[in-house]
């Protein structure tokens, strides 16, 4: 335990979030405790309304917790900020060219233009979009846009990547391709990743651990270790027996949560 605590990159303890409403308060998160190790890829899966996005926004500093605490430890391995977020769809600035979108975080940190473009170009190459650097996001497909979003986060060289269902809007084929690219980038850079998804498959395919959340109020119901090694083949892995077993297990766990939330909803 002491060893685990020492290598902890993110430590969340007894965290709660209450949104104050006009008529009544809404408890989005209740007593969340979670430790993420340095270089770990943690997937968080849960039904809509379980507060997983709120949890990620708190980690990103976009919301403040009502109770409890969250700490991120710098290792000094990277030049960038402690964390960067990859948002759901439509978060690229339509008025900036692809290259300037990717270089956005660097520009905010005052990196000179030539240098940040150079770095952005490297990332664009990694996601296979070099040819599109002078395009505007509106000229790209949904899958390409999300690859640019991912490149934008990586270009900033953060220690932790926070991803909020970045691939939810993609079609099945594109999703597999971008997941693959994402994993390659992650394996190359060994960054700590917290990845939110509502897809059980995706959580299992990508994560070292899967955190299962339940709703009303949002809380962690189970944390599973994913037994597959690295690097992973996203297609072959699906054929493994363990994959279907864990996936069925998560499914039942989520189903029970959804059914429970429904009965609560009636009141």
């Amino acid at each position, binding site marked *: 335990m002491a060893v685990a605590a020492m290598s902890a990159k993110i430590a969340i303890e007894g965290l709660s979030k209450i949104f104050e409403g006009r008529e009544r308060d809404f408890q989005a998160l209740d007593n969340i405790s979670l430790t993420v190790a340095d270089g770990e890829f943690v997937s968080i899966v849960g039904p809509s309304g379980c507060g997983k996005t709120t949890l990620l*926004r708190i980690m*990103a*500093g*976009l919301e403040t917790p009502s109770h409890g605490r969250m700490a991120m430890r710098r290792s000094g391995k990277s030049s960038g*900020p402690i964390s*960067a*977020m990859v*948002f*759901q769809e*439509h*978060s690229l*600035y*339509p*008025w*900036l060219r692809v290259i300037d979108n990717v270089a*956005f*975080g660097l*520009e*905010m*940190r005052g990196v000179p233009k030539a240098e940040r473009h150079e770095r952005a170009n490297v990332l664009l190459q990694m996601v296979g979009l070099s040819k599109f650097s002078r395009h*505007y*996001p*509106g000229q790209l497909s949904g899958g390409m846009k999300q690859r640019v979003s991912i490149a934008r986060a990586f270009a*900033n060289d953060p220690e932790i990547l926070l991803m909020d269902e970045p691939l939810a809007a993609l079609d099945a084929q594109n999703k597999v391709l971008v997941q693959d690219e994402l994993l390659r980038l992650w394996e190359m850079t060994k960054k700590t990743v917290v990845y939110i998804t509502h897809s059980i498959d995706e959580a299992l395919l990508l994560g070292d651990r899967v955190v299962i959340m339940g709703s009303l109020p949002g809380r962690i119901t189970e944390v599973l270790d994913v037994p597959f090694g690295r690097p992973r083949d996203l297609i072959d892995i699906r054929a493994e027996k363990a994959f279907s077993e864990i996936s069925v297990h998560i499914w039942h766990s989520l189903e029970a949560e959804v059914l429970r939330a429904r009965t609560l909803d009636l009141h």
Partner: protein
Amino acid sequence: MHGPLTSIEGKKKRKRFSAAARDRVLTVVSPVVVLSIWQCASQMGLMDARFVPSPVSIATAAVRLTQSGELWTHISISLWRLSLGFIVGAVPGFLIGLLMGLSRWARAILDPLVSATYPIPKIAILPLIMLLFGVGEASKVAIIAIAVVYLVLLNTMTGVMTIDRIYFDVAKNYGASWRKTFTRLIFPASLPLIFAGLRLSIGVALIVIVSAEFLAAKAGIGYLIWTSWETLVIENMFVGLIVITVLGVVATAILRELEQALVPWRRE
């Protein structure tokens, strides 16, 4: 065998002569046809030349007015009033719109004033403006500025207020300073609506300047139209009408070019 082949060729031919090219030709052809009919009707005495002069006599009048330098005097004075009024109206309109778009406080304080005064027909307050600014140039510039300020203000405010929340999250997450948030997010995001405000302003500004020049001016396109009517030099009146139309078209075209240069991501 023959039938289907010809039909394919027919399709190809239609493609070569694109719909856009056809539209362009029609835009040129239709006014020419109308003008020709008009000219013929005048020459055959179907229209009373005292009220509706023929296109040729209007053109002659235009040449005469141009040669005497009279037309240019009117155009330049109107243009000067318009441009100055535009700037004096658009700049504060943009700044106040920005403030109201960004700050709830500013909105709560200013919105009642803006909403209450916006529906007043701008030309209705010309007497008041003349009382305040005198009968000279200042009152013309002021009335145009007042017409422009509302449209730019309201459009800028809407532009800022409708910026997607997620863009602000991105700026915050990437540690954007306030200055960068403005130059990289707020300003470019609201540009399309600012331009919409400017486009509307051109139309309104033309109405206001012509009306003001009808009533209280010693030069300008509106003055030319009005005095030509009063002295029954109808050809000159038509010249004035054409000039003001061309001014509107040219101003709109310039603004469109400017918009395409500044808002390139909106193309297509």
